């Protein structure tokens, strides 16, 4: 199994997500997970009861990552869903992603941050020495 890793980094008023992975598909999946570690105090409280599918079109990889996270944030904001597991297939012209999670249950899910938006500032998706790196700052 190819695995990735992620961390939150600090940014004056907001939070940064930094993700590393061996391939693009894992990078995008890990980015989804990283977003929900910023939103939730403990992502492991989320049960994978429902699956949603997200399609994003575009050729710019950075904007593709932006739009993928933006769609996930919308599912949280509008449909009150939180996610724990992610699978993404990144293509030349877009991506297909699946996220598994459930509806927010205030008795089990403690929210940590209100993520207002994904931002373009310092948005990076780069391949370096055989490894992929992404950085995204979210406005909170």
């Amino acid at each position, binding site marked *: 199994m190819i695995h990735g890793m992620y961390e939150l980094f600090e940014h004056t008023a907001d939070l940064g997500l930094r993700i590393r992975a061996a391939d693009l598909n894992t990078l995008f999946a890990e980015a989804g997970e990283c977003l929900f570690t910023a939103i939730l105090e403990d992502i492991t409280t989320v049960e994978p009861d429902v699956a949603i599918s997200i399609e994003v079109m575009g050729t710019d990889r950075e904007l593709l990552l932006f739009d993928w996270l933006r769609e996930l944030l919308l599912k949280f904001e*509008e449909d009150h869903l939180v996610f724990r597991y992610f699978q993404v297939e990144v293509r030349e012209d877009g991506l297909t992603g699946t996220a598994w999670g459930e509806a927010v249950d205030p008795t089990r899910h403690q929210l940590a941050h209100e993520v207002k938006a994904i931002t373009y500032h310092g948005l990076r998706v780069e391949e370096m020495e055989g490894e992929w790196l992404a950085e995204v700052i979210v406005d909170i």
Partner: protein
Amino acid sequence: MAKPEFTGPLENISSCCWRIPRSYKPGMRVDGLIFANDKLIETIRKDQALDQVANVATLPGIQKASLAMPDIHWGYGFCIGGVCATDPAEGGVISPGGVGYDINCGVRMVKTNLFLEEVKPHIRELVKALFYTIPTGAGRTGRYKFDTTETRRLMAEGPRFVISRGLGVPRDLDHTEAHGCIPEGDPDEVSDHAVKRGSEQCGTLGSGNHFLEVQVVDAIFDADVANAFGLELNQVCVMIHSGSRGLGYQVCDDALALFRGCPTKYGIELPDRQLACAPVESPEGRKYIAAMRAAANYGFCNRQLLMQQAREVFAEVFGRSWEELGMELLYDVAHNIAKLEEHQIDGVTKRVWVHRKGATRAFPAGHPEVPEAFRAVGQPVIIPGDMGRASWVLVGSSGSMEKTFGSTCHGAGRALSRTAAKQDTSSRKIEKELEHRGVIAMASSRFGLAEEQPKAYKNVDDVVDVVHQANLSRKVARMRPIGVIKG
């Protein structure tokens, strides 16, 4: 990704004004001007905010200078604490980044006829009741539910819509910027996503730096103006700091996506993608303006509903109606907004788009947009500070029209990142520390108090000193918090 501190040219042109000359960066159309004293400028230099002031100076149609208030700090594209005016007649642009994600984030101050000694014995009960009545924090929805049609009406009409349902009184509108309704806001230009995000959040505080505070007038600096505003020493007031919630964030987000292709389409060279802008007179520009105005009206409405809930809680705790408690709105003013205003530029009256991102309108005495009750003294300017120290009431003065397109500062400005603040101490400890200072605080998030602790902010008194000295607005009263609720 942290860059070293600003090392570009910074000329001290007066005791509280600094200039970044136009020659600093290619593409700068005007100078950058920063209002700050020696002490503040040292902090300001440490992040990239000054570079952002220079970047804004490259925007097409910018007038006079790219301006920064003393509470300037790093923001997306535009710095927070930035003011810029663009002239549509000169190809001027509108920029969602110049308004910010939280469209019409702003402050509202409500007076009471109660004094400290009457409130002190009830403060714990009062804060608790406020905290359990008013939805705070991430993901919270409000007790007021509006369907999508009602949400769109609310955006077209502003607080007038909820007042017609008994949630406030018509005189509240007289003390709200633009009477709470910016004309030509078009709810049909607001996406369904944004409406959905907003429909269940009107009347909720949100998280981050938003708060509702019970405050006491701690010092009076201008007795005549304080009298005109109805403020006295030891009087208890309520200050509300919130914006347009998820609806505004989504309008900004939608606009940034819509504006992606604009720089190429209109031949605008941008030093930073987050500065995204479009000519005012373009389909994209017009669409954003219509949606932004509608979102701003939602923001006024949100604060109206927050105020109304606070009035109800006070009535319950003190056993008298809110009218009997004298809970009149002093003023509601935005600090994240862009507005079409008339200003004198080099002796010519122009209608320009004034972007205020973390800056407060501060119109002086006599200005027709100042509520009639205050026209002889000037517009009340409400400046929220941090929860341990002070907030301020200022009054707009003539210098703002001459120097800053009728604008002044908006708050303290962050000094520590959230992570650094959180590592510094725990929320539990902050709660105790605040209690020791006579402040009862409740927050819905475990990290809320730690991330927003007083140490995380610059001292608002320093910021206010500068705008007073520069005559952008003058000190009227300082407010000290005694009760705080936060997200």
